[in-house]
């Protein structure tokens, strides 16, 4: 046996490789069982990126179902509350081109809103409570209802069922602690980021008008 191996080093190599592959195969198989990932991680990740408004505008009964649908190949631009920012992050996660928001599902609001019940007009019918996916409405039958503004996602679903039409969607005001700086305006000006030598030859004529600025 030893002689055979000594004479034909090729056998030695084959045996060594074979043993290695068996060992590693075993380790991999064990790891696959031992470290099995529960659930569908991509769905979890997608769900994490969605805004959790649970408004159903995407056509699914909540954000998780939409996350599942995306994982199964649905378009990623159906969520108006998330808007372009969410589309971009999802596109980055899935490594696809980011489309713009599908207008069919509604428009992105620039200011977040909350529902506010005009309390003296509330008759305590509990209809809005049943519609609220967030459990954000407090009240009991024949008692005045009110919205817990901190929990309301502004999904709009409570407005329609109200028989006295006393729920308003009120834009949230920015308070001092929420105020933040805006990006400086010229950042949107693409020409600003082009140095003359950067300009592509065939774009030169378009850049003509910016010359004065760049000089």
């Amino acid at each position, binding site marked *: 046996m030893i002689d055979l191996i000594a004479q034909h080093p090729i056998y030695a190599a084959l045996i060594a490789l074979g043993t290695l592959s068996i060992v590693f195969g075993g380790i991999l198989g064990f790891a696959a069982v031992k470290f099995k990932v529960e659930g569908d991680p991509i769905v979890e990740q997608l769900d994490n990126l969605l805004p959790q408004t649970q408004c159903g505008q995407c056509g699914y009964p909540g954000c998780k179902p939409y996350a599942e649908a995306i994982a199964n190949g649905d378009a990623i631009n159906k969520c108006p509350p998330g808007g372009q920012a969410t589309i971009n992050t999802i596109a980055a996660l899935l490594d696809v081109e980011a489309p713009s928001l599908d207008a069919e599902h509604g428009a992105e609001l620039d200011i977040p809103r909350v529902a506010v019940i005009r309390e*003296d007009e509330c*008759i305590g019918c509990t209809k809005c409570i049943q*519609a609220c*996916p967030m459990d*954000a409405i407090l009240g009991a039958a024949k008692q005045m209802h009110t919205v817990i503004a901190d929990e309301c996602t502004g999904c709009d679903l409570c407005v329609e069922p109200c028989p006295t*039409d006393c729920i308003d969607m009120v834009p949230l005001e920015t308070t*001092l602690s929420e105020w933040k700086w805006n990006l400086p305006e010229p950042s949107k000006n693409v020409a600003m980021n082009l140095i003359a030598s950067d300009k592509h030859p065939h774009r030169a004529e378009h850049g003509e008008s910016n010359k004065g600025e760049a000089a």
Partner: protein
Amino acid sequence: MSYNVSSVRKVFDIPGGVHPPESKEQSLQLPLGPVLLPQRVVLPLSQHIGAPAKAIVAVGEKVRTGQLIAEPQGLFSVGLHASISGTVSAIEDRPIPHTSGMNAECIVIESDGLDEWVALDECEDYTALERDALMAKIRTAGLAGMGGAGFPSAIKLNPRADDKIDTLIINGTECEPYITADDTLMREQADAVIQGTLLLAHLLGAPSTVLIGVEDNKPTAITALKKAAAAIEGECNIEIVDFPTKYPSGGEKQLIQILTGIEVGSGDVPASLGIVCHNVGTAVAAWEAVRYGRPLISRITTVVGEALDTQRNIEVRIGTLISEVLEQNGFNADEAARLIMGGPMMGFALQDAGVPIVKTSNCILAPSKQELPEPPPAQACIRCGMCAEACPASLLPQQLFWYSQSEDYDRLQAHNLMDCIECGACSFVCPSNIPLVQYYRASKGAIKQAAVDKQKSDRSRERFEFRQARLDKAEAEKEAKRQARKQAAAEAKKLAAEKKEQELLQPTIAPVAAVPIPAAVDPEAEKAKLERALSSAQNRLDKAHERLDDAEPERRDKMAARVKEAELKVLDAQKKLEQFNTADNNDPVAAAIARAKAKASLPPHAKLTSSIEALKKRMTIAADKLSSAKTEGAATVDALQAGLDKMQGKIAKLQQELIDLGPEPAVEATVKEDTTPDPAAAAIERAKAKAAASANMSPADKLHDQITSIEKRIAKTAEKVAVARAEGSSTADALQLGLDKMTAKLDKARADLGELAPQVQPESAQNVDSAPEPDAASAAIAKAKAKAAATANMLPEEKLRDQIRSMQTRIEKTTVKVTAARAEGSDITDALQLGLDKMTAKLEKAKSELAELSN
């Protein structure tokens, strides 16, 4: 005395840094000047980082200088004191010095010109006091870091138990151009600075190293401090360290690195390295608070800039309006380029001079147009790398700039954007004049916002999932109960069968004791029960009749009502018994239950469809029977006819429901099977359908749609109003209000529609009948539209029938109620009668409409 004047401490260098023109001489020519006592002070409730203070005075209240007027809310907050004596004239939103130019809640005090102080609690020897008492003094004095950020000082003096502080650094650097407030403070009140430093050191448990760091461009201040330190009797280990001037050596982390050589890592707080850093202003304020009991009500501010006649440092009461300060220093508004609070590097432009001086206002800069011209427009980044060389935090500003532009927050964080101290050194050196700091501030804001949003969305998810789980659980419980009932019924049947068998086998033996089965439907027992109910109802009816006969005339009405009620009850009981008998006779109970069960387990769609099928089948049979009865001239014709009508009604109703459920099949494919008839899901369905429909609609169509939906809602609400009225319910008004509003909306929508396209009008569904039809094509379109509208409206005829039926039952109910109310002389009789009349009118209307429709 361990302090050695000649000792030279080794100082270190920081990376980067710049040397902007210092421009400090202008304001140091004149000594510290007082300003007139202001006529009015405006004191923002939030002059610090953390929760705003809470006002504890009321409008109209008299306050004295130094009185606490707003107390801190929680630990991370700072109190506020009246800076003049007078009357609180308002507590309201006023413009405050903030980059946003927004308003915030302020307490406004009108001066009485007296400046009467509250009694101050002086303390000769603070070392005799407990640490807690000392801390309380500092906490109630309203101290917030006076260097710029306004961090509550008491928190910094209260390091976590596991952070052993061995170094106290007092920051007298003041590296920003123009500002000389701390310089002036150190020159004029060097003793107080040294005393304050000793006090802070005492509070921190006497750290081994106590340093006062001053840039070497303030020789006068350094000399004054050294003199003051040398004059202290007894133990004093304060070192006054001077080091080369360089911007921004006054940043906390930068100063620590200069004085100790220790670099505070990304995300670390100095306290975790055993270092605490305070501003000289804070040290003095702490000293005054403890020694003299004086809260923080004034500060030294630099008023500088070529647009002013007098450039100097002033001691000013907190809350004095900046416009007042400027006026007293000869402000030429025409010359001023802008108004800056803070220095030219880190300050911000004020949009309005009507804002007050706050605890953190160290400088008001009013430069002329030549002095600080508007920054030239930004150019493209040429990747020169000068910003990276200037950055004291060793960041890569140009990278951060690119990532900020592309809003790539992950990369920004990976490049430690959060370590940027917003010093502006990078913008200062940038040859392309890019406002880099503004990009960083915006990105930092966006990152923080994203974190907040993430938190909120996580909480939303949790709540949503919890709700879902709760609904599922309720559903499961219901299902379990249903199952239990079914099982019990089956068992009861089995038992009954067994009993029968046994009886057959052993007729002489007494039957086994009945096994008590809760909720078991024993047909026999049930029947007996119903029969009992019927007989007792009949009994009552008889009695009522008797009493009616005996009754005095005035009680007759009441008695009559009772009789009527009793009659209804009897009828009810009879009906129930009948139903039971038929059900019992037709089919074994189990079969019925099985059928019901099968139905229940079907999705709502299939359920409805199958019920409709079944009804239709029954209807055909009934129709057959009817025709045969007719031919035979049997007496049952009428009854059969009535039954047939009823069935028709039922079918119509079910069909309506089916339509209500929506164009299911398409949706069913996408929606998960578990779409329970949960109102939220239903609402989502509706929203979805709406969104889908409105997307490919023209505005006119959308309006139509809106109008239909409003009309629907109006109809619903109108019904509710009627009911509420009839019941004399208190909600009637509210409902009516809602109804009015909806009507207004409807009118508006209609008006909009009219405006939108006059040529569309003739095609509108409402006007189809009356509208002139210009040509065949448009007529066809109109017809198609009408058809669409008809289907959308869910078969008006059926709807009407449905309405009529519901009206009739409601009228019946209300009639009973009215009679009862009348008999009892109740005061809601009128309201009820009104509701009844209205309902009757409505019924008539619906009937006539139906007649019209079927014609």
